[in-house]
């Protein structure tokens, strides 16, 4: 079975330990070197087929995280991935160096910088700095808003990333129907939920073809079918994000649905579907599969 994780920022394992334990690994909210209170309210808004958020990387800062939060997370008995973020390569290196001695399973580099002038160079610099600072497995998380996400994934691969996390949110805006003012305090925010699903699939598809790296696929996954689609596009693991807000029981449900859906397609393990979207000769034939009227 492919590992099932949460998307960074979509779960607090200390507030909901049972939900964290129902995952194969827990991914923290992004930690930055210095404490951040995050953005002013309003921070979230529902939109058609998804939601917007502008939390603003609220986190206790690296010191407090390592000294106070991390020990409690490690006691939960679920592998911990730490998402790190920053504003320059040195921020990432500092965080990775600090986490190198800790019992974390992997580090996710939140390198979602669609607005920098040269994302290829910026990403390569950040990943290289992090790589030099730690021997932990590094997963580089990319924005789906990049003009050429595969080129940036290749840059991350050159700089030594072990895998990719695809995708972060898209930029979006929602207006109050009564006043036509932006709903969020920062006007725009990150789009997530079902609306992100085809975007995530396309990014996973492109980056798998370009790099062949392990990929944690995420973006609008609500059912086992959605997870299987990401795996067929090239993901080796899946993460749940927005669905956790509505359904904290989603991990067990999605895992069961994923196994059932793969089995109906003649696959003993859902991971056998990895990359099938790229290989016509190996794909199940429609005549050999029995898809019930309602799949998940």
């Amino acid at each position: 079975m492919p590992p099932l994780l949460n998307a960074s920022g979509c779960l607090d394992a200390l507030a909901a330990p049972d939900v964290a334990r129902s995952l194969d690994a827990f991914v923290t909210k992004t930690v930055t070197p210095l404490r951040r209170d995050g953005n002013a309210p309003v921070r979230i808004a529902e939109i058609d087929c998804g939601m917007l958020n502008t939390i603003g990387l609220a986190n206790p800062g690296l010191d407090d995280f390592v000294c106070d939060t991390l020990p409690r997370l490690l006691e939960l008995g679920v592998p911990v991935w730490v998402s790190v973020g920053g504003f320059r390569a040195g921020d990432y290196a500092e965080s990775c160096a600090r986490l190198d001695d800790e019992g974390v399973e992997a580090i996710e580099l939140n390198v979602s910088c669609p607005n920098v002038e040269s994302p290829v160079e910026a990403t390569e610099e950040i990943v290289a700095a992090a790589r030099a600072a730690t021997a932990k497995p590094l997963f580089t998380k990319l924005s789906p808003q990049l003009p050429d996400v595969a080129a940036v994934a290749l840059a991350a691969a050159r700089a030594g990333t072990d895998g990719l996390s695809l995708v972060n949110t898209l930029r979006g805006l929602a207006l109050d129907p009564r006043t036509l003012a932006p709903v969020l305090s920062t006007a725009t925010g990150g789009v997530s939920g079902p609306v992100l699903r085809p975007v995530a699939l396309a990014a996973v598809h492109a980056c798998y073809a370009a790099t062949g790296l392990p990929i944690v696929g995420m973006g609008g996954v609500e059912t086992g079918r959605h997870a299987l689609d990401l795996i067929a596009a090239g993901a080796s693991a899946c993460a749940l994000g927005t669905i956790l807000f509505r359904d904290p029981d989603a991990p067990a449900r999605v895992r069961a649905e994923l196994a059932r859906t793969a089995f109906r397609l003649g696959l003993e393990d859902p991971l056998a579907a990895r990359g099938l979207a790229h290989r016509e000769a190996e794909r199940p034939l429609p005549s050999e599969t029995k898809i019930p009227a309602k799949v998940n």
Partner: protein
Amino acid sequence: MLRREAPSVVAVEPLGAYSLLRVERATLECGDPGQFFMLTPPGRTLPRAFSLCLAPPGELAFLVDPVGLGTRALVELQPGDRLPVLGPLGRGFRLDVPRPLLVGGGIGIAPLVYAAERLGRAPAILGFRTPEHAQAASLLQGAEVVIEPTYVTERLSPGRDVLACGPEPMLHAVACLAPSAQLAWEAPMACGYGACFGCAVEIRGRLRRLCVEGPVLTAADVVPAELEAA
């Protein structure tokens, strides 16, 4: 331990401008007055937060003001429809107070109805925008009812332990008049259990999650700047 069920809808009963949404209790606990539940309206991505209004035997009942896509979908539910319900969540009112006074505004009367039931008769002052909205006061027998332009704060008697829920300006005004009041606040939230960090409000000078630290706070928890701004 989070408990989520999809109980059947028993009825949706119009109550003036509001509706009372009754669902089967299933294995869900009622929790304390002021705690809340996340209800997922059909067809929506995110659940909505509602404090418990009534706890009839075998049921949970929520007061709904159908003002948006989610709340309108909730009042259109039919008996027998399944409704995902998560809760109870958050911190509710402390009921161990010697001289309780319930102060509610608009849809904010919901948790006070359940609080009155648990306290067993407590005086209440309820304020509404219109006589149509004020019909919901029938849920709380014996309550004093005021309608705009009269405000509940004009009727507050001193020396009472105030439990209040209502629109933000009302809560700020109550906090000024009754510094020991317990206030039930509201903020947009995606999850209700600490996952999304969407419901951040400034408490004791720091942005904190209302779903975890609240929704009931004491007036002293609210930063002075906010009170002054009111």
